[in-house]
């Protein structure tokens, strides 16, 4: 049996389902979860340092990591804005005078991480309304603290993903109002992928292939068995089943190379990444995904 270590954090992750339903074992692979981290960049650092072989992160973070020389590469989908799944939701209080993005000037805008997909989506939304990131005050605040901060008036806008989005709706209902979601800004895009250490993958192609195949099987199974998947996600994340929504992936959980290129172009255009030699295929690949022709 091959083994590998995986750095997780508490989001809807098909890796949990693949472990629980034996999809990895089917490919002779044991995936050991080595513990929660703060977010994607921390997972990347752990993998680059050799503390694990795989993790999950936003595509912008994987781009930044490659620009800094860290050997990580995206493999499979974990978070995508899709027609049935806006993924990123930006809320204001129901009684807020903020009616559109144009009203955000001078407001307190909570994001989970700086230079995260939420931060970039917010900046893009501002740019589309002829503003810049300097027109709002971005406040660093973890997802689980944001809804409380919004209700108490400590921030004016929050950006949530699942399961925090469902939690906010079920907890505060008519006290919050959706201002915009990610597809309003740039349509449906992939935000986040699993990744592996590129150097490790080079020497362990069978293990990477098994890891990717297990995730693809899990993603396909989840889309067909949403109600059965919920308790598994609840078991691994500690999140109540009631707050776990239906969840969808890119076809065959593939890395969407056009979306990877979109993020890369945007970061290069902003000057956040100066490594002009970077190509989408340096950031993510489908070469280990046998389901993708």
């Amino acid at each position, binding site marked *: 049996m091959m083994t590998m270590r995986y750095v997780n954090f508490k989001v809807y992750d098909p890796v949990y389902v693949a472990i629980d339903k034996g999809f990895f074992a089917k490919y002779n692979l044991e995936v050991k979860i080595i513990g929660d981290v703060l977010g994607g960049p*921390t997972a990347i650092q752990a993998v680059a*340092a050799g503390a694990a072989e795989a993790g999950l992160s936003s595509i912008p973070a994987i781009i930044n990591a490659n620009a800094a020389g860290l050997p990580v590469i995206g493999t499979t989908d974990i978070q995508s804005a899709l027609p049935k799944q806006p993924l990123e939701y930006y809320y204001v209080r129901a009684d807020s005078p903020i009616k559109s993005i144009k009203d955000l000037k001078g407001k307190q805008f909570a994001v989970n991480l*700086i230079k995260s997909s939420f931060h970039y989506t917010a900046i893009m939304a501002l740019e589309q309304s002829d503003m810049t990131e300097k027109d709002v005050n971005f*406040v*660093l605040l973890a997802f689980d603290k944001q809804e*409380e901060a919004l209700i*108490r008036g*400590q*921030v004016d806008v929050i950006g949530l993903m699942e399961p925090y989005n469902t939690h906010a709706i079920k907890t505060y209902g008519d006290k919050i109002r959706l201002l915009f979601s990610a597809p309003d800004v740039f349509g449906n895009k992939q935000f986040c992928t699993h990744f592996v250490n590129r150097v490790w993958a080079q020497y362990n192609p069978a293990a990477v292939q098994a890891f990717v195949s297990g995730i693809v099987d899990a993603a396909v199974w989840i889309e067909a068995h949403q109600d059965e998947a919920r308790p598994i996600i609840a078991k691994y994340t500690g999140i109540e089943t009631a707050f776990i929504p239906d969840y969808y992936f890119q076809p065959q959980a593939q890395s969407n190379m056009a979306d990877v290129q979109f993020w890369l172009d945007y970061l290069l255009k902003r000057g956040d990444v100066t490594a002009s030699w970077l190509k989408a295929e340096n950031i993510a690949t489908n070469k280990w995904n046998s389901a993708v022709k």
Partner: protein
Amino acid sequence: MKRLGGFLLLLLLWEVIARRVSSPLLSPVSAVLPASWRLLISGELFLHARTSLINILIGFSLAVSVGLTLGVSITQFKTLRSMLMPIVDAMRPVAALTLFPVILVALGLGIASKAFVIFWTAWPAIILNTAEGIYRVDKSITEAAQLDGAGRWALLRHIIIPLALPIIMTGIRIGASGGWISLVAAEMLGASAGLGYAVLGYSQTFHFAEMYAVILTIAVLGLAMNVCLAYAQDKLDYDKEASRAEKYLRFGDRAIGWNLDSVRWFKSASS
């Protein structure tokens, strides 16, 4: 000069290890120092340092005020001690990070919440050292002063606290270090500037040379604060205070002269 030599050796070791490890995660000093300079001349470092220093100064001042007041109080009132010490002991291991939801509800996201996190880390060392310093004051000195007619306040002000000061100052220095340690945690709480915030930002975007430059700044500022406090501690050392007091005595400060003469007499008599 020897201290400077220690730092230079540390920097040299850092450079050698970083080059040997050759990982983007560990930037060598030769990359960190230019990054520090870039952040310095751009004004970015100043902006973050100013924000953090304000957070530290407010949180630390609060910790010193509360720690000293409670530390002295529990030595004077047994009931208060019985009530307060179990709470202090129970609260000490609770990391400020775990209290974020409470802090958020109670203090919001402004400067008060950051100052509170720093206060939370700093105050136990101050209260415990203050009490310990006071308990260690030789009973024969305080009893003699009481026989001379010194009341509780005079005893505290002129005898007990001056003699306990070295230990109290040690507590304040430990508290200050604790405050700096919790800075990163404090600035994770809804911050938009500060050295802790900058460390997180550079770490998350893999700008490791800049990240280490900010860490270096935290170390330098923490060291500067400790040096200032050590200087104050040195100045407040009893023997030096006594010799300074002799000068005051010449100008007729009889109150200070009385207590220091008493203390000196009892110290020499007891040794």
